[in-house]
């Protein structure tokens, strides 16, 4: 390729790529600048409440669930926090699937987590699939002195001393399932929905994670385009330099 052709080619692609990634460069530069001064600007203390952002982050729009255990209400804010009446007692991954008192302990079933709490509300233990808790647990109940778990493959008797899960045929007529909490609890749970801090938003905009895996791919592509941009810029500069040198001779 002649110097002239090389110059035309690199300038043409430099323009195209420059135009294609202008918006991303702008986003990367602005968010990068802000992130460099995150502590001075105290971005982490600026909280943003937005339903659009909550959707982008996949944060569950507050759909709290609650279950009455005896005279007390156990509720989950739809995100992480578990409450017994008004008190935060533990954290577990939504949704709340069931709860029951058994052997003097409060057993709470969440997504792939079985929490055991003392009567005082103190967390005794969390049993996860890494300790053998079956996947796809759907509900929990106590029947005939047995702690039963409903799974996609049938009902299991949970022996939490030995961590054995035996299939059983006796199933409760009705599995207690969490419901929308009563109004006074619902208001309290909605008020405690977590906000997104500006630092997190800047980080996720910078990396593209705000738009999920696709966003990351786009930002990766923008980064690759920036590399190509620097190459085409260099080639264009070098070609024009050589052409000028040649024409002087």
């Amino acid at each position, binding site marked *: 390729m002649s110097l002239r052709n090389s110059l035309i080619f690199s300038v043409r692609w430099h323009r195209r790529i420059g135009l294609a990634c202008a918006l991303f460069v702008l986003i990367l530069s602005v968010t990068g600048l802000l992130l460099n001064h995150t502590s001075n600007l105290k971005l982490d203390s600026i909280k943003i409440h937005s339903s659009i952002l909550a959707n982008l982050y996949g944060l569950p729009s507050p759909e709290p669930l609650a279950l009455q255990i005896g005279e007390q209400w156990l509720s989950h804010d739809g995100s992480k926090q578990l409450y017994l009446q008004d008190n935060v007692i533990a954290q577990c991954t939504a949704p709340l699937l069931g709860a029951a008192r058994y052997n003097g302990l409060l057993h709470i079933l969440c997504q792939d987590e079985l929490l055991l709490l*003392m009567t005082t509300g103190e967390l*005794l*233990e969390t049993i996860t699939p*890494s*300790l053998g808790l079956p996947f796809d647990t759907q509900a929990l109940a106590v029947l005939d002195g047995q702690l039963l778990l409903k799974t996609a493959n049938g009902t299991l008797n949970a022996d939490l001393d030995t961590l054995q899960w035996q299939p059983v045929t006796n199933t409760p007529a009705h599995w207690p399932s969490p419901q929308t909490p009563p109004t006074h609890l619902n208001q309290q749970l909605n008020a405690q929905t977590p906000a997104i801090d500006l630092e997190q938003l800047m980080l996720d905009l910078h990396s593209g994670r705000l738009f999920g895996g696709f966003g990351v791919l786009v930002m*990766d592509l923008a980064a690759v*385009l920036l590399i190509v941009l620097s190459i085409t810029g260099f080639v264009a500069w070098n070609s024009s330099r050589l052409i000028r040198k040649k024409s002087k001779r």
Partner: protein
Amino acid sequence: MLSFKAVSRLLYLTALLLLAPCLWAKGVYMTADQYLQSTFPNTEPERKVIWLNAELKAQISKFMYRPYQGLRIRYWQQDNRSAWIFEEIGKEMPITIGVTLKQQQVESVKILAFRESRGGEVRYPFFTDQFQGLSLTSKNKLSQHIDGVTGATLSVSAVKRATKLALFLNQEALKQHASKPLQE
């Protein structure tokens, strides 16, 4: 001259190459049962529980750099060997780590499940073999330095914390066993 199609293909391939390590990192490599069977072949280990009081939890929090939730931790023992399974968060997701101890030293460290998008290199023997034979110092630190893995700093740190926790709890279990029958 390169066509637009060729340039697009090149960029697509580059993006794929950049993303490939992330796609390979995640996975469940071993269930708890498989880990226990491989640790105690042809035998049923004794299931045990260690109870944590406020003092122990405070000590654990110091080297785990976070408050420890829960009052009891399960482990499995056969003669002078014990196996511990922990879930420790690397950056955002829990890593399931199996630590096997012989007396008061690490026999092996295995990554049972890795859920982070990067840092999965910690599951390879070149990293986990470094823990073999390590013990806990009086300051609750590992007895030897562990070489890090580039790009997996937080995962490396999580594995180190889990190993320290296993060694610490094993020590405490031995103390509890020496002073009174272990509570179960």
